[in-house]
């Protein structure tokens, strides 16, 4: 029987006197989903509940068909978790540490050692794997965290702020790894991050939490495929005449930041027509793509709509 990867049914979680998650219902079966929301929205609590650390006060959470409340151990053997905070043992070498984690996940001793080496090579720490974790730089520690999350071959990977504090090359490596794992088709990934760019580059679906509720769900892949009427342009040259002419054709135009413009094509207007206008006025169309809303727009809209205006 095919269970959804994560299924939440009216999930409510209470911490102390506060109700942190309220009546969450959601179902995820795709390959990657981004979990977004402002601070305090309940993302960490949700992750902790899925891992079985908090018990729901109402409703249920199922992962691969198992109840997080009662089958926590079974779930944990199928899940790999990369926490946001530091998580390492100072005096252990990377290989020993990953091996320990693998054995605790149930791998036999020799296999654990093999896979520890493999996963460290895979994330790019091959050269440094015999060094103590305490001597690692921040980027390397993040990669080590990723290595321990995948060493036991989980079916679901939960990443909490994986690119936190990483400099651009390290971030690119992390994003590349996430994409590779996604494309390998062997696991599902939940990515929790404040950096919308990261989510955009890796996730197919997005769910936005606010104050413990789901306020928005998007399938980014679908959205990219549809929406052929919305253009985003970056223009160079004397713009005003161009904009007026575009409006004259029936298109709506709105300025964005730094020479960017959003255009809604009227029904009988094609891209070629826009190019004609540009050719006539010697405008450079430095950038052009079909895009309705960036993830940032979606996020800000989701925040606004439940606030009744910021």
């Amino acid at each position, binding site marked *: 029987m095919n269970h959804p990867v994560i299924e939440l049914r009216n999930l409510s979680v209470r911490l102390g006197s506060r109700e942190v998650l309220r009546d969450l219902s959601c179902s995820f079966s795709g390959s990657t989903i981004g979990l977004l929301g402002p601070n305090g929205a309940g993302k960490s609590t949700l992750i902790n509940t899925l891992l079985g650390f908090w018990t729901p006060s109402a409703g249920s959470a199922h992962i691969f068909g198992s109840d997080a409340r009662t089958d926590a151990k079974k779930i944990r053997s199928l899940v790999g978790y990369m926490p946001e905070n530091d998580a390492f043992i100072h005096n252990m070498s990377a290989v020993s540490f990953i091996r320990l984690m693998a054995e605790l996940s149930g791998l036999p001793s020799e296999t654990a050692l093999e896979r520890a080496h493999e996963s460290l090579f895979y994330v790019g720490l091959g050269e440094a794997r015999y060094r103590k974790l305490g001597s690692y730089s921040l980027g390397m520690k993040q990669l080590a965290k990723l290595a321990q999350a995948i060493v036991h071959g989980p079916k679901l990977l939960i990443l909490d702020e994986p690119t936190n504090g990483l400099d651009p090359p390290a971030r690119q490596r992390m994003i590349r790894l996430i994409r590779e794992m996604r494309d390998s088709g062997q696991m599902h990934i939940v990515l929790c991050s404040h950096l919308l760019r990261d989510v955009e580059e890796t996730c197919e679906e997005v769910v936005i939490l606010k104050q413990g509720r789901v306020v928005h769900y998007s399938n980014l892949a679908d959205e990219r495929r549809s929406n052929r009427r919305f253009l985003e342009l970056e223009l160079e040259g004397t713009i005003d005449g161009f904009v007026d002419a575009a409006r004259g054709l029936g298109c709506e135009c709105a300025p964005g930041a730094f020479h960017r413009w959003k255009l809604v094509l009227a029904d009988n207007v094609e891209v070629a027509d826009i190019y004609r206008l540009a050719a006539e006025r010697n405008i450079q169309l430095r*950038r052009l793509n079909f895009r309705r809303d960036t993830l940032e727009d979606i996020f800000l809209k989701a925040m606004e709509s439940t606030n009744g205006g910021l």
Partner: protein
Amino acid sequence: MSDRIVFDNVSKFYGDVLGVNRVNLSIPSGITSLVGPNGSGKTTLMNLMTGLIRPSRGDIRILGLTPDQPEQLFRLVGYSTQYDSFPKGLTGYQCVSSYLRLYGFDRARSEQLTWAAIDRVGLRDAAHRRAAGYSKGMRQRIRLAQSFAHNPRVLVLDEPLNGLDPLVRAETIALFRSLAKEGCHVILSSHVLHEVDIISDQVILMSAGYVAAEGNIQSVRSEIEDHPMQILIRCDRPGELASRFFAEDHVVEVRLHNDRRGLLVKTQAPDRFYLLMNRIALDGFEVESVAPCDDDVNSVYEYLIGAEEPTR
């Protein structure tokens, strides 16, 4: 010039270890971003700018003042570090106001400035809670409030957007812009390059203690001569489009994309190229997207500093 931050042949060594080497900068007002890998000298540069450390060689002038004039200098400068720690037991309000008292403001004025700063970062409701109980984003915002509460003219911020959710990021960026518009020199360091692209007026790229590039990003880009401009075009007949491009003398390379629906063009004269596109596009090509691949900080970074360094 007394409206700039000037570094004149500045070097800083910690024993044998290099902090920064022969740095020459002249930073105007507005938002300046410091970009570079970890360990490239950004924090050293910031510490030099705020007068916390002295250079081993060279001169620093901040709006005409030197670190030898601390009484005046430190009033002008505000600093928000990357370190996430607070004196124990203080509330958010106290974190800001106690430092203000050190500037010599009396109680009433200090209270007024504190609330102004706290309001600006949107933490009025939580101001009387302990800072230790704040979420990561709130702690970041209180640090920011602390740094500009005394209305400095130079604001040095080390990774100020770290840990902030997208909403608060946007608000904080708006805050920086308004400060910059008031004539402030806002210097911030960040790893999130596409944000740096959007918010900065100028960029300083650092690598291994040297300044690799500085200035407005477009002008930096056009100065990197040995890299012709790369543009990615997605359309329905890329092969045919490619042959049209080859006819031009400024196009040095055209590469077909793997999925046969796009091509990568390298041209030495982007302006001419775009105007050419306007004409070619009218010949029945269905253009899906046009995107310069390297007109941004990301690519400049890659060219000058290198992508994906092996783990050290």
